[in-house]
C-alpha cells in the first residue's frame, strides 16, 4: 500500500488532525451520503442562522484517509458561507484546497460535495425554502442489517 506517499501534506494534515469532527445537536441540516459497501460514508451537520449563513459545520466519516481529509476540508470551506455560496464548495474546490488527491481517491471529494448538498437539502426541506441550483441529493447509503449482526 502506498497511499501515504501519494497523499499531499495537506491531505495528511487534515487526516491526522481533522477539523470539525462531531455532531451538532438539532442541526439545521444533516446529510448522509455514501455506501458502506464501497467503504465510505460521510455525514455532515450544518448550523445555519436566520440570515442563511452557515455558522457551524461538523462531520462524521467512515472511510479512508482521503474520505476523512475531504470531509474535514469541506466543513472548513462551508463555514461562514451563505447557503447559496456553499454550493461553490464543489469537489474540485475541496480537491484544490487539499493540493490534489491521488486519482483513485477523487470519488472521496465528490462524496464531500454530495454531503454538503444533502445537508443543505435537508435544511431547505425543513424550512420549506428553495436554494437556487441545489438538486436533490443522491442517497445511495446502504446499511444492511447484516452489518449489525456480526
Amino acid at each position, binding site marked *: 500500500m502506498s497511499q*501515504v506517499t501519494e497523499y499531499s501534506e495537506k491531505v495528511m494534515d487534515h*487526516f491526522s488532525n481533522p477539523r470539525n469532527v462531531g455532531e451538532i445537536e438539532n442541526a439545521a441540516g444533516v446529510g448522509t451520503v455514501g455506501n458502506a459497501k464501497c*467503504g465510505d460514508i460521510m455525514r455532515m451537520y450544518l448550523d445555519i442562522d436566520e440570515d442563511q449563513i452557515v455558522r457551524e459545520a461538523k462531520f*462524521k466519516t467512515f472511510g*479512508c484517509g482521503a474520505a476523512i481529509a475531504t470531509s474535514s476540508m469541506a466543513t472548513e470551506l462551508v463555514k461562514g458561507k451563505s447557503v447559496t455560496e456553499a454550493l461553490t464548495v464543489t469537489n474540485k474546490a475541496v480537491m484544490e484546497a487539499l493540493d490534489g488527491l491521488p486519482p483513485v481517491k477523487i470519488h472521496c471529494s465528490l462524496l464531500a460535495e454530495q454531503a454538503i448538498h444533502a445537508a443543505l437539502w435537508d435544511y431547505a426541506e425543513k424550512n420549506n425554502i428553495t436554494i437556487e441550483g441545489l438538486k436533490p441529493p443522491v442517497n445511495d447509503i446502504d446499511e444492511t442489517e447484516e*452489518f*449489525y449482526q*456480526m
Partner: protein
Amino acid sequence: MDKMIYLDNAATTKVAPEVFEAMKPYLLEEYGNPSSAYAFSGRIAGKVTEARDKIAGAIGAKEREIFFTAGGSESDNWAIKGVADALKDKGNHIITSAIEHHAVLHTCEFLEKRGYEVTYLPVDENGLVDPKELEAAIRPSTILITIMFANNEIGTIEPIAEIGRIAHEHGIYFHTDAVQAFGHVPIDVNEMNIDMLSASGHKINGPKGVGFLYIRSGTKITNLIHGGAQEYGRRAGTTNAAGIIGFARAAELAVSGMEETIAYESGLRDRLIGRILKEIPYSRVNGDLKKRLSNNVNICFRFVEGESLLILLDQKGICASSGSACTSGSLDPSHVLLAIGLPHEIAHGSVRLTLSKETTEEDVDYTVETLKQIIDRLRGMSPLYEDFLRKNHQARA
C-alpha cells in the same frame, strides 16, 4: 519515529544475515555464468546443484524435481498453464478455490478466456476447502487441482494431504501454491501426494526474485519460459546463482528452526489475538484458529475502515496491511474475506498483522495499546458507530 514494528511478514521478510553472507561471494567474486565452460563457472554450477539438493530435501523431493524460477507468481503460472497445455487433449477442466492468491486466480481466468473451464470451490467461514466438495467437483475432463497450502491473508492451512489423496485416487495432477507455507509448516510431497508445488525465497528471510516449482518426475507439463537450456532444459534464463544459494540457505535455516519458530510465533500470535478480542469490542478474528499459520493475525474491527487504520498504525511505527478496497485500488474489499462470508462493510475494516521470530512480546503489547487508541478515535468519527450506539440505546429504552 524511534522504532519500527514490522508486522507484515506475509508480504515480505528481511534477508537473514546468514543468507546475505552465503550470497555475497556469488555477487562479488564468483559471478560467472554457471552455464559457461570454464572452471570459474563450473564451481558455481556445483554450488547451485548443492542448493537444489537442500531445497529438495526440505520437502522430501529429489534434486532433479526442483526448478528455480523468478518467484511464486511465475511458479504458479508455469504449473497451471503448463499442465493445461500439456493435457489439452485429455481435458479442459481445472479445480481451484475462491481464496487463492491472484497469481493462481488470474491465471485461471486467463485460461477460461481460452476455452478452459474452472471450478472455484467455495470455502467455509474459516476459509477451509471441503475435500468432499472437491471430490464432487471432479469431472472426467478434470486435468488439474490447484489449492493453496496456506492462505496469505487469513493464514488458514488447507487439508492438503486429504486433497492430495483424492487427486491421486482420481489420477489428477495436484498443484499447491505453498508460498506462505514453505519453510513455515512441515511439507512432504510424497506423503501429501503433491505433484507440483510453488514456493518463494523472500517469504522465509531469503532474497526476492527467486522461487521454485517442484515438479514430480514424469509429470506432463509444457515449458513456460523459452530460451536457453537452463534448469534441465525446462526453464530458460541465466541462472540466478546468488539468489538460489541464498534461498537454499534460508530454507535450511527455516526448516531446522521450524519447530522452535512455530512454538514462539504461535504464542505471540495467540497473545495478540486474545488481547484484541478481549480489549477491543466489536472485533472478530478471521480464519481458522487452529489450522492457522503460526505468524498470522487477521482481525476485523467494525465501524472503521482499513486504510485509515493502516495510516494511523504507520504513524505509530507499525507496518501492517489490510483487506480494505482502498488498499487494493479497486472498489471491492479482499476476495478472501468476502469468500469466508463477511459482508463488504465489515471486510473493509480488516487488518492483517503477520509476525516473525524477531517480534517481541513488547511489540505485541504496544500494538494492542496502539490499536485500542486508534480504533477508539476512528469509531469516534464513524457515522456507522454513531448509528449503532443510537440503535442500541433505543433498543434498551
